């Protein structure tokens, strides 16, 4: 099979043997690719400074057959996102969104949506001086939507009635994956009450470009409710908790006990 070329973001790289690395990348054209980069631990030519997590690269590779590893010939740097190495909270956020992409995307099934979203997330972490309070829930919501788990916020998930006009009475059912009207709010198991602003934000996620949605200003309440919605949906689709979630929580405790904690959410 001939050599392929595509833009990609490095999700993670781990050492393999004495001189190689196994690298997982989210590519623009080939979904998620895991391949072996021969000599990557030592090469000062083909792989220098391009296999760190969160790096945006041009990937030259030979796709795998079946479950085999792809063969990575070389990577050229497109953009080195520096914010994760300069701000602990951004490092934790970058780790979270990268791991989330890794566990939610399997093989070549991903279209360009997830790739575009990941780039938008890393670019926001790089360029936005103050992060939106909704950054992580917004990213998670957009990823859920792009992988087919978009919450339905226009119709009641029990009776099908249009729900947009029911101001102040919105109830979200994680088990039904969407809103319930006031008449049906007892038909969704455990539910989450949402403010109108939160419903508006969930609706806006469908039409707003990712790079804008990740930067929208919202109240703490909307951020909290959106987080509750996406957390409840994620818990239904993930088979294990994210490893980076523990680090995020440790960092939050750490920030609380230190005066100069990182800014943002």
């Amino acid at each position, binding site marked *: 099979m001939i050599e392929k070329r595509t833009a990609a973001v490095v999700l993670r790289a781990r050492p393999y043997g004495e001189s190689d690395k196994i690298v997982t990348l989210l590519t623009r054209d080939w979904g998620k690719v895991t391949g072996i980069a021969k000599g990557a631990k030592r090469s000062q030519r083909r792989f220098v400074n391009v296999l760190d*997590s969160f790096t945006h690269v041009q990937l030259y590779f030979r796709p795998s057959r079946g479950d085999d590893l792809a063969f990575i010939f070389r990577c050229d740097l497109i953009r080195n996102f520096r914010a994760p190495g300069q701000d602990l909270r951004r490092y934790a956020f970058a*780790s979270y969104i990268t791991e989330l992409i890794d566990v939610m995307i399997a093989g070549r099934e991903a279209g360009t949506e997830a790739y575009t979203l990941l780039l938008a997330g890393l670019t926001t972490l790089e360029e936005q001086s103050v992060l939106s309070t909704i950054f992580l829930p917004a990213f998670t919501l957009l990823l859920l939507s792009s992988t087919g788990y978009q919450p339905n916020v226009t119709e009641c998930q029990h009776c099908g009635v249009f729900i947009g006009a029911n101001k102040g009475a919105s109830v979200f059912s994680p088990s039904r994956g969407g809103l319930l009207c006031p008449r049906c709010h007892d038909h969704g198991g455990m539910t989450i009450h949402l403010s109108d602003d939160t419903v508006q934000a969930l609706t806006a996620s469908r039409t707003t470009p990712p790079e804008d949605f990740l930067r929208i200003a919202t109240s703490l309440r909307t951020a909290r409710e959106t987080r509750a919605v996406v957390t409840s949906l994620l818990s239904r689709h993930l088979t294990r908790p994210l490893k980076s979630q523990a680090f995020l929580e440790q960092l939050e405790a750490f920030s609380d006990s230190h005066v100069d904690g990182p800014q943002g959410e």
Partner: protein
Amino acid sequence: MQLTPALARLVEALGKLPGIGEKTAFRLALFILGAEREYVENLAEAIWAVKAETTHCQQCFGLAEGDLCPVCRDPKRSEESLCVVEEPADLLAVERARDYHGRYHVLQGVLAPLDGIGPDQLKIAPLMERLRQGKIREVIIATNPTVEGEATALYLAKIIKPLGIRVSRIAHGIPMGGDVEYIDSVTLSRAIEGRREM
């Protein structure tokens, strides 16, 4: 060719060493087979001893035989400076440079959320305990210039600075004997950013 069972076992064991393929393992096995008995006994004993006697230093978590490593036992080493590294191999690399005369602390890794490694999985609590004893005036953070190494350095700086201890980071940039023309853009950008006045 059919190897004798003992020779086959040795070839297999040697072949598991890093950088040793089957052919090299075979050559090494033949060398051992033809060597003096005393040499072979020394080699076997050295391999056994390194495994049986090497532990982690109870103070810095570098490699040691007994409770403390040679650096921690050495009264001539400065007690005011502490160099923080990721792994014991990094400690040995800094020692080879022969320009540092302080003490060390080995973290036994770096913060790596994607691998589930947070502050509690590293030797950060013992580090803070050492710093609170009050002798150390400067901490030099010598973690690798990877995103994980940088994040670990940031974390350490944040928790150490409130103790009133000077925290510095090793410089990153163009290697000695390097050629600017061939340096990658990330390294060059760091080198320019970290330039110093002459």
